[in-house]
């Protein structure tokens, strides 16, 4: 099969991947370096949330980082075709997606979709994590379409 005409670029700009971790987000980024996707959950009631000092549901400050499968579905997306800063000019077009993470109800991750043709993009498409090691210290999770045959 021929290469899809409008294949999006595998967005990866080292300038933008400098991290500014705090104590709440550090476990997430430590795990990505080991190619593990984890989700922040309340240690008392189990509700998944973005990393932070308190559970918005029960008020507990206990946190558990739950291992996730790395699979998910596309909740929404945009195909970026205009470079808002010079560093991304060579990267167009690229896809930013909101990924519903499997096994973590209510938790979504913003990530690029790689290895996908624009015409194939759709909300609800199953995807899985792909690790982009920017440096020895930084690994950014991207996502690629999940091949249902595998």
């Amino acid at each position: 099969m021929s290469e899809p005409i409008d294949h999006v670029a595998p967005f990866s700009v080292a300038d933008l991947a400098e991290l500014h971790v705090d104590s709440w987000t550090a476990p997430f980024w430590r795990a990505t370096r080991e190619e593990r996707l984890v989700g922040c959950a309340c240690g008392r009631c189990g509700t998944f949330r973005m990393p932070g000092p308190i559970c918005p549901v029960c008020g507990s400050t206990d946190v558990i980082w739950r291992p996730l499968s790395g699979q998910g579905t596309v909740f929404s997306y945009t195909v970026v075709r205009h470079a808002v800063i010079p560093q991304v000019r060579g990267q167009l077009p690229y896809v930013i997606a909101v990924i519903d993470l499997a096994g973590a109800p209510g938790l979504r991750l913003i990530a690029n979709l790689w290895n996908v043709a624009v015409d194939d993009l759709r909300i609800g498409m199953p995807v899985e994590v792909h690790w982009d090691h920017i440096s020895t210290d930084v690994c950014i999770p991207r996502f690629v379409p999940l091949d249902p045959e595998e």
Partner: protein
Amino acid sequence: MTRSSSIVGVGATPYYQRGATVARTTMDLLIEAIRNAVDDAGLQLADIDGFALYSGGYDTALLAQTLGLRELRFSAAITGTGGGSAGAVGLAGMAVDSGAAEVVVTAIAVQQRRRMGAAFSPSGGSGPYAGTPTAESDFSVPSGLLSPGQSFAMLAQRHMHVYGTTREHFASVAITTRRHAQTRQSALMRDELTLESYLASRMIADPLCLYDFCLESEGAVAVVTTTDRRARELAHRPVRILASAHGGTGSWGKALTWMNMPADSFVTSGHQSLAQRLWRESGLSASDVDVALLYDHFTPMVLMQLEDYGFCGPGEGGPYMADGGGAIDGNGTPVNPHGGNLSEAYILGMTHVREAVEQLRGNAVNQVDGAEVALVTGGPAPLPSSNLLLGVER
């Protein structure tokens, strides 16, 4: 709350394209707009005794001294961005209603020395949207999520998926708004916009193209709020504050930063609870509104606000606008007869307040016949956003 305050003065600078005010300071623009608003009210600068601002506010110490205030008695700002524009006037009304101050100014000046559009990036952006890298932006910037347009594109994409909204629906907002702007001299964009030229324009963040974005512009707008009692002694027909709300549901919170709001909120403007509070306080509903000034930084957000405020049902915003529901000569409530952020100028929402006042005084360029109630909204954005319901007695 019993509301007893009115807008009595409105003033502005001319509107400029991005970069055109580079020789002036932001304070310079701000003072010009405030002077014009106070003159319009028939008051003196020294009469001002309060500031109710938004988007971070201004150096009120410098303002108070520069304007020659006798005494500053109230100074507060709604946090956030253009979401606070309408609510800042509501805040002025609260200051007046409470007796804390008597003549309160709400104003904004916008200069874009660098592009606002690259707001979230570590190397671009300016003004109230400029972001510094943080632990939370680590979850967006490494993916190249660098601008509000890209975030709103993802809300729009899901609205299309859930409701069948189309790009032609978005186009109807841009085209209707441009048609309104054609007769307004202050509007920066007055060339006719057709569906063909809309569809042929360059895609920025699919599904949003060039014409789905508000303008990059500069200028300042100010309004003066005072007591109903004092308002009756002044030059213009008082424009009464009927109700106002700012805030929004907590789960909307960092909606556009993390995109973790509940799925049913994701396809809204985040204004549902604000709308409910506005209607509850005023005892009115969308059907009572004669003219709607809806913050239009991105076309899809106009559709979602029409839905959230009840001008139509959920998911029906696209057909509402496409069927002419928002046109000045259409079959529904006219939306943004001044041309809005999309075609007149983008002054973080204050042009909408100005237009509401002109409509209710009866001297708007595109006057809605017999307009007695106007809705103004602040920008759908992270919390707090806001709204304002204004009215006149015939």
